[in-house]
């Protein structure tokens, strides 16, 4: 039967598989029963028949006929066959009319049809027989009727078959229910994904209080959706931010060029306009470059280039790089380095992060103050701490300053990408960034992340 809907097909497959398993199990059971029962029964009969043979072999020939009659008379179930035949095969006594021919292969006993003489209304019967030659040339036919055995086997088969029928229906039913339940669960996920594809990321799958494996899968899908939704929101926000951030300088650039075109009168005038324009464009390119670098940093591929970094040299280089600038601005830049173990990282990225922090401290700290860059070692983990004499980032803004384009103060230059870049670099290294609860200290903890509970800076 062709069913186009894969869910229906799955349902029938479940039911069918369960039913097939049940049938197979019944058949195996029946076969086992038949083999075991038949074998036992045959051994019991052969034992009885051999008993008869040896009894009559020991009985004097004159008494055999009398003994035989007596035995038959004692058989009230009429299931025994006993007969004596002479050497030519003529019946001397007993309840079997003719002597059956034993099969060629021989064997202890055989099954053959015989003609009973004492069973009313029956001219033929099937029995297990044995023919024993006796000392005086006569032969004894001993046999056992198989009617009962056959009846027992027939009953067994019947009961197994009858038992199978409700079993089959049960299996089909359970299979259908299980299949339909699975199909329903899959349907829920399918409907959700359809809605996600059409752009609705708010939907979530229901997760039971005590989830089974499917519930756990649903929980995982939900987590994935949370992350996806966050990323999409971030991307949308970034797009808006970039447009907004570029619009202001572009407007300024355009206005400047327009005014220059109108007002500049000589070469020097035009050169001044162009110089201002170039500076503006460099600022724009700087924003674009920083954004590209952020994207690049967030994609972890760069870790392949990590090598051991000597942080002492790195912090000293950063200080050396900023020393003249600090002096020009009347700021004292203090650099103290304790010996620390080397860390795996990218020296250019790490110095960029440190340089950004020093730059921020010099820009936002109080004029004429002190900026300190400290490299310390705490429990074997290097910490780079940059601090100025000011209050640092206000508490309320701390979660915001590492976002793109966030500027705590509008008076300073820059597009608000510095701390976002620092955070991205720190994240890429698996390090953590901490703000001191008091004051302006910002610390890069150059070690693997600890459990998320600890968000305070190390002492």
């Amino acid at each position, binding site marked *: 039967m062709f069913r186009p809907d894969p869910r229906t097909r799955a349902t029938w497959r479940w039911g069918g598989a369960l039913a097939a398993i049940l049938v197979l199990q019944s058949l195996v059971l029946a076969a086992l029963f038949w083999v075991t029962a038949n074998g036992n029964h045959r051994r019991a009969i052969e034992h009885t028949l051999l008993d008869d043979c040896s009894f009559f072999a020991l009985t004097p020939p004159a008494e055999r006929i009398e003994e035989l009659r007596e035995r038959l008379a004692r058989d009230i179930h009429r299931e025994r066959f006993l007969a004596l035949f002479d050497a030519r095969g003529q019946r001397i006594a007993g309840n079997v009319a003719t002597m059956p021919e034993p099969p060629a292969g021989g064997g202890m006993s055989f099954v053959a049809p015989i003609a009973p003489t004492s069973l009313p209304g029956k001219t033929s019967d099937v029995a297990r027989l044995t023919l024993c030659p006796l000392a005086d040339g006569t032969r004894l036919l001993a046999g056992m009727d198989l009617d009962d055995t056959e009846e027992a086997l027939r009953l067994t088969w019947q009961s197994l078959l009858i038992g199978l029928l409700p079993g089959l229906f049960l299996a089909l039913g359970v299979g259908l229910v299980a299949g339909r339940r699975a199909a329903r669960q899959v349907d829920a996920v399918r409907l959700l994904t359809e809605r996600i594809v059409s752009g609705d990321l708010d939907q979530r799958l229901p997760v039971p209080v005590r989830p089974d494996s499917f519930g756990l899968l649903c929980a995982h899908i939900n987590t994935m959706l949370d992350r996806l939704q966050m990323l999409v929101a971030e991307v949308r926000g970034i797009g808006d931010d970039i447009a907004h951030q570029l619009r202001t300088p572009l407007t300024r650039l355009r206005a400047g060029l327009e005014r220059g075109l109108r007002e500049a009168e000589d070469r020097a005038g035009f050169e001044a306009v162009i110089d201002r324009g170039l500076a503006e464009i460099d600022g724009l390119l700087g924003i674009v*470059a920083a954004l590209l670098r952020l994207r690049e940093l967030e994609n972890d591929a760069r870790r392949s280039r990590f090598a051991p970094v000597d942080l002492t040299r790195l912090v000293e280089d950063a200080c050396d*790089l900023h020393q003249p*600038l600090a002096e020009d601005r009347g700021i004292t830049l203090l650099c103290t380095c304790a010996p620390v173990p080397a860390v795996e990282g990218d020296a250019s990225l790490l110095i960029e992060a440190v340089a950004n922090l020093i*730059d921020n401290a010099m820009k936002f700290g109080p004029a004429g103050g002190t900026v300190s860059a400290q490299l310390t070692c705490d429990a074997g983990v290097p910490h780079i701490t940059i601090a100025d004499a000011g209050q640092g980032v206000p508490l309320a803004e701390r979660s915001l300053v590492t976002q793109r384009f966030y500027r705590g103060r509008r008076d300073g230059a820059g597009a608000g990408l510095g701390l976002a870049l620092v955070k991205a670099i720190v994240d890429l290294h698996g390090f953590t960034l901490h703000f001191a609860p008091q004051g302006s200290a910002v610390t890069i903890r150059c070690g693997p992340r600890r459990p998320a509970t600890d968000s305070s800076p190390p002492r």
Partner: protein
Amino acid sequence: MTQILLLEDDPGTADEIQLELAAAGYAVVHRTTLAAAAEVTRAGGIDLLIVDRQLPDGEGLELIAALRAEGFRTPALVLSALGSLDDRVRGLRAGGDDYLPKPFALVELLARVEALLRRPDERRDTRLIVGPLDLDLLEGKASRAGRPLDLLPRELKLLDYLVRRPGRIVTRSMLLQDVWGYTFEPNSNVVDVHMGRLRRKVDGEGEPQLIRNVRGQGYVFDVPA
């Protein structure tokens, strides 16, 4: 005349680069496909390759790798809009000699081209005497026409770097990369402040200017005639 092959498929960018290089006195052969560029290079006479990465018929790095495999040692400068520093490593591994991510300033391009065409004087001299300048790297001292220049070690390194590349543009990122050993673009004008101090020490009152600022992008050390 020095011949430069420019492989770049964006006409606007190609025009700008051609104009800049022509103004600096280079002959530029411009091609837009890998196949055409390979043909020109194999014909010989090219002194430098400037290769964009994403081209209509493939990846610029493959051209460089192929040429290197054929034994061409022509220096190559790789341009890329991919803007990733990992790309830089791949570019250099493929046989590129320098790597410039887009967007770049034309001065930067020119400086890199000059650096590739004229390998600096890398003799490990410990005493450099150029014009009025006398640098003693072992003693860590420098003087101009007998007047001792009180240079910090870093300033001496900067002056050493410039003096070995006379008449050529040296950009801020080249200085940061070669003197400090880091590749990054600082937010602030830290390098300029270092250079400003060096210039004030080297070029005293009334003396001819030896270190010149180029459009705020880089510096040139002019050997006095």
